[in-house]
């Protein structure tokens, strides 16, 4: 059946309910809602959440916004916590301690801080062990919950509270880590990078594939943050669009090692289009800082080219 966002939203009620306390214009809740909509209505879900914005805004005692089972333990261990839940499921199911006809799916959500940085070991361990789960990184490119500190996912030159755009050092001076590639290095059955764009089609379909592919799967989802990035809350979807159309955030998937770029802009927009509406990059547009934009563009171009190459190489049939 062809993807139809109205049908999906109409037929599948959100499993993350309204009333949570995420900011207006935050990229994370629409991402989580759409991913959970990809779960078959008859299936139960155990969600694990790393400490972060999503966790502290959706489950403040005694209220929860989650209609499925949910567990939060700490910042760095959503993957290992969920691996324990999944192991229990396997064991109990085999022993006949759980109903035979009921399926449970395991989905972890972590921000980039809890995934790229402090949770990388726990994530790597869980993926390598092959637990049947999906780990979703909602990547907003900094420690937003603690007040916009740089992470290894923060883009170069971004102004954060620990990499302030100063007179001597103009923001974060290091390039961001390529987490999806690290996950590909784990030889997972399915790794994808996605973002809400074009009626959420790419996000929904990748979520569905990840959830219903047996084994450990990883989704890296762009999740803009109005506070940390400095855009107008109503521009969330515009920011997503610009990230994709400039090839800053390519949409691609890697199935058993084979790359597929899911969207190739007909006309790749210059990176300024993405940088301009965001306060974190404002200093890059000051006179004399043209080199920063040039350098940023170069990095985007080389990463895009690398991706095109990987697609070509891994699809080669000889």
């Amino acid at each position, binding site marked *: 059946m062809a993807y139809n966002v109205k049908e999906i939203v109409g037929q599948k009620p959100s499993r993350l309910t309204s009333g949570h306390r995420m900011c207006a214009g935050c990229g994370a809740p629409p991402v989580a809602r759409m991913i959970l909509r990809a779960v078959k209505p008859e299936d139960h879900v155990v969600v694990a959440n790393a400490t972060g914005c999503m966790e502290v805004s959706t489950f403040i005692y005694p209220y929860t916004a989650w209609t499925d089972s949910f567990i939060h333990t700490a910042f760095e261990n959503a993957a290992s916590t969920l691996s324990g839940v999944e*192991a229990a499921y396997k064991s109990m199911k085999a022993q006949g301690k759980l109903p035979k006809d009921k399926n449970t799916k395991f989905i972890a959500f972590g921000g980039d801080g809890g995934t790229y940085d402090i949770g990388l070991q726990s994530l790597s361990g869980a993926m390598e*062990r092959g637990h049947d789960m999906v780990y979703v990184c909602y990547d907003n490119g900094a420690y937003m919950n603690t007040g916009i500190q740089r992470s290894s996912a923060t883009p170069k030159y971004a102004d954060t509270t620990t990499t302030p755009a100063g007179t001597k050092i103009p923001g974060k001076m290091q390039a961001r880590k390529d987490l999806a590639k690290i996950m590909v290095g784990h030889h997972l059955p399915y790794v994808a990078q996605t973002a809400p764009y074009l009626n959420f089609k790419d996000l929904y379909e990748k979520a569905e594939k990840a959830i219903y592919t047996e084994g450990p799967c990883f989704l890296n989802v762009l999740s803009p943050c109005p506070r940390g990035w400095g855009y107008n809350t109503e521009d969330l979807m515009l920011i997503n669009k610009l990230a994709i159309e400039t090839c800053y955030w390519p949409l691609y998937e890697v199935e058993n090692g084979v790359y597929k770029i899911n969207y190739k802009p007909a006309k790749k927009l210059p990176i300024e289009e993405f940088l301009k509406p965001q306060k974190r990059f404002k200093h890059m547009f000051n006179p004399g800082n043209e080199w920063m934009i040039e350098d940023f563009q170069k990095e985007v171009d080389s990463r895009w080219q690398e991706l095109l190459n990987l697609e070509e190489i891994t699809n080669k049939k000889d």
Partner: protein
Amino acid sequence: MSIRERLSGNEAAAIAMKQINPDVVAAFPITPSTEIPQYFSSFVNNGVVDTEFVAVESEHSAMSACIGAEAAGSRAMTATSANGLSYMWEVLYIASSLRLPIVMNLVNRAVSGPINIHNDHSDAMGVRDSGWIQIFSETNQEVYDNLIMAHQIAENKKVLLPLMVCQDGFITSHSIENIELLEDDVVKKFVGTYKPEHYLLNDKEPISIGPLDLQGYLFEHKMQQSEAMFNSKQVILEVADKFEKITGRKYGFFEEYRLNDAELVVVCMNSTAGTAKATADKLREQGIKAGVLKVRVFRPFPAEEIAKALSNSKAIAILDKADSLNAAGGALFEDTVSSLYTSNIHIPAISYVYGIGGRDVKIDDIEKVYKDLNEIVNNNGNINYPYRHLGVRGI
């Protein structure tokens, strides 16, 4: 019919786990506890148990996976030592606050640094306020027995707290002793099945676990944990009674050895109790009224009961196999002395830090402790200096 065997402490622990047959075991290797998951994984791979073994990449993940598994509605167990336990520190508090009755083997070893693989109690003492029940074991038999009793205590509705069974690294874990094992079906019946009220895998009642718990609620939740720890005292004794009925082996909060009429008392935990008992026997032959109080249950701390048991003595030495580095005495010393004080009992008491990093403790050493106690008694209870170290050079 019990089974007579010869096992090391680690083997005894692994056999107990085999008979308990938990749903999930998540563990990471660290000396001297490594053998436990090692033996256990052979049970898993040979299909002797129903357990899912999660060979995690760290102790932090071991405890996180145990939390996930227990919250999911299954029985989860682990084993660790020293730095492994330190690495779990953050999640130990989360396990107890989520009221998950996980059972852990702690094979006591000195916490780095510098690194040292041998026995002391600095690992267990470092987590004494983490909300875990801590039970100490003198012998391999006690390791086994404490593990068989563990789930019945931890999973009791009035308790619902995680529990660690401690044994001395190498001294107990790697020494082979005679042991009496229960038959598999006897253990199965004694341990029973785990039936949590609420759990993640119950699709009929989805639940959220681990909230942001702010000023309006956290204190009450901590109070409930505190009450559970108080409740566990009675449950520990009830389970010990049941256990005695099937084994004839009697357990309480502590063991009183020649304590009834003792004037000079040594308080200690784990394998040192054996050496202390032998010393007391030797001194008794010389007409010295020596006794031993071996603490088995350190958390909850049986304060009133210990104070009462010590009330007739004339001088007490409390032996800590971990230095609190607080310029005020070891942890067991502080808890014991505060128990005496709150029971309005005033008996001269001194702190001995001993056996750090596996430093051997012999009968001669404990004899010196009794001698010091004797001096205090002869000196009208004048202690001179209560913060002492035993068997260290340069003092």
